[in-house]
C-alpha cells in the first residue's frame, strides 16, 4: 500500500557534505542517462541519506498499514473476502520486508530501522493513524488508498536506485490486486442494500480528508527538492500526483452515485485541474506529530510484536551467524 510522496521535514539537518565534484558530475551524468545506481556504486552522501529515509519510511508504512485492515480479517463477511484480505495484509508485510531489504543495501541494518520506528524517531504514512471502524473502511482503504499508493509507487519505480525500483516493480503488481479486490468490495457495498450504501458513504466521508492528505502539502520548490528530482529520488510533485489520483478515481466514485464531502471539489474546465477546498493541513501536521486517533496504538502494537517475538528470534540464533549488508 502506501507511497505518500510526503516525507516529513527533518528537525535537525545534518551539515552539508561536500562530495568530490568529479564523482558527483559522473554520478549525475549516469542518472541523467537513465542508468540505475547500484548499492556499491559511489553516490552523493545526501543521495544515500535521503534514500534510506524515504525507503525506510515507505517500509514502515507498509508494516503499519497492515494493522488497520488486519483488524477486519476475523470479521470479514464471507470466506472469499477473508482469504482476499489475508492475502492483501500478508502482501503489505511482505512489501515492508522487500523495502527494508532495499534500504539495508544502503547500509542501515533492519534492527536500526525498526528501533527508529518503535521509538518514534522515523515516520510512516499519516493515513494509517486513522481507525478502520467498519467493513466499508476496508473497501475505501483497499480501493482508494491503494490506488493513491499506486500513483506514487509507479512514479517512484522509474527512479534511479536499482534495488528500490526492483522492489517497487513487484510491489506495484501486488498492489493492483489490492486495488481490484478493494474496488470489488466497494462496488458490492455501493450496489447493495441502503444500509450497505450508507455505511460506504460514511466511510468515504471519514476517509476523504486523510486521502487528500496522502500526497502531502504542495512541495516547496527549493534547491533541495530540485536536487532530489534531478537525482531521480523524487519523481513527481505532490500536487501532480494528487491531480493524477483525482482524475483517475473521482469519476469512479461518482459513477456509483456516491458523494464526496468537499463542496468545492470540481474539475476546472479551462485548466483541466481539480479544485478542492482546504484539506485542513493543520490536522495533517498534528497527526504527524503523534496526535492522530491511532498513533499510540499503532506504535504500541508494533513494539509488542518485536518485544514478544524476541525470545523466539534469540532461541533460533546460530553461533556462527553474522550480519552482512545484502547485495541487491
Amino acid at each position, binding site marked *: 500500500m502506501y507511497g505518500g510522496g510526503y516525507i516529513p521535514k527533518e528537525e535537525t539537518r545534518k551539515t552539508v557534505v561536500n562530495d568530490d565534484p568529479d564523482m558527483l558530475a559522473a554520478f549525475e551524468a549516469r542518472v541523467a542517462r537513465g542508468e540505475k545506481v*547500484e548499492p*556499491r*556504486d*559511489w553516490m552523493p552522501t545526501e543521495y544515500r541519506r535521503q534514500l534510506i529515509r524515504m525507503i525506510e519510511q515507505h517500509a514502515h508504512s507498509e508494516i503499519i498499514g497492515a*494493522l488497520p485492515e*488486519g*483488524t477486519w480479517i*476475523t470479521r470479514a463477511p464471507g470466506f472469499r473476502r477473508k482469504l482476499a484480505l489475508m492475502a492483501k495484509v*500478508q502482501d503489505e508485510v*511482505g512489501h515492508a*520486508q*522487500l523495502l527494508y*531489504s532495499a534500504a*539495508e543495501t544502503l547500509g542501515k*541494518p*533492519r*534492527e536500526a530501522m*525498526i*528501533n527508529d520506528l*518503535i*521509538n518514534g*524517531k522515523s515516520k510512516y504514512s499519516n493515513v494509517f493513524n486513522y*481507525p*478502520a*471502524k467498519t467493513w466499508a473502511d476496508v473497501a475505501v482503504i483497499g480501493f482508494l488508498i491503494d490506488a493513491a499508493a499506486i500513483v506514487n509507487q509507479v512514479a517512484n519505480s522509474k527512479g534511479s536506485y536499482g534495488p528500490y525500483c*526492483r*522492489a517497487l516493480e513487484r510491489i506495484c503488481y*501486488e498492489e493492483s490486486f489490492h486495488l481490484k479486490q478493494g474496488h470489488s468490495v466497494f462496488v458490492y457495498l455501493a450496489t447493495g442494500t441502503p444500509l450497505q450504501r450508507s455505511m460506504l458513504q460514511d466511510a468515504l466521508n471519514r476517509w476523504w480528508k486523510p486521502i487528500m492528505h496522502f500526497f502531502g502539502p504542495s512541495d516547496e520548490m527549493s534547491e533541495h527538492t530540485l536536487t532530489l528530482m534531478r537525482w531521480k529520488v523524487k519523481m513527481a510533485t505532490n500536487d501532480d500526483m494528487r491531480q493524477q489520483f483525482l482524475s483517475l478515481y473521482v469519476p469512479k466514485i461518482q459513477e456509483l452515485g456516491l458523494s464526496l464531502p468537499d463542496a468545492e471539489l470540481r474539475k476546472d474546465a479551462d485548466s483541466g485541474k481539480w479544485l478542492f477546498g482546504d484539506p485542513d493541513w493543520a490536522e495533517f501536521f498534528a497527526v504527524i506529530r503523534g496526535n492522530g486517533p491511532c498513533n*499510540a*496504538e499503532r*506504535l*504500541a*502494537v508494533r*513494539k*509488542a510484536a*518485536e*518485544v514478544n517475538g*524476541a525470545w523466539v*528470534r*534469540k532461541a*533460533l*540464533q*546460530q553461533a556462527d*551467524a*553474522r*550480519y*552482512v*549488508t*545484502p*547485495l*541487491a
Partner: protein
Amino acid sequence: MSVEIQSLDPRVNRLGLHTHEPGSPDTLPPHDHWGTYQVFHQKKRGDRHTAVGIVHAPGPELAMAYAKEQFGRRGETANLWVVDTRHVMALDYIDQDMFATTPEKTYRDPGGYKVNDKIDAYREKMSHEHTP
C-alpha cells in the same frame, strides 16, 4: 501519562497495551533479526534460477521457509535456492570497465564473419569473365 489502549481490534485489546509503552532506542540489539540470505527463484522446470531478493533468517532451513512465503506465494514456482549472503562473491561496479572492450571482440561472435559480399563480388566477376 500512560493509559490502557482501547482498540477496535479485540486482538489488540487482549494484549493489554498502554500508551507510551516503555522502550529504549536499542529495543532490538544488533543482529536480532539474524543475517541475510539471497533468494533465487525458478519459475518453470528448465528455466534459469533468477535472483529475486533477500530474506532474514538464522539458518538455511528457515531462510527457505521464508523464501517460499515471500517469493513463492503467487504465480508459478518450480524451485528455489537460498544462499547465505556471506558466501556470494560479487564484483564491484567500479571495475565494470574490465568488460568495456568485450562487445568489440567480434571475432568471438558469429556476426563477426561476414563473407556474402565477397561471394557476390566473386560471382559477379566470374559471370563477366565467362560472358563471351
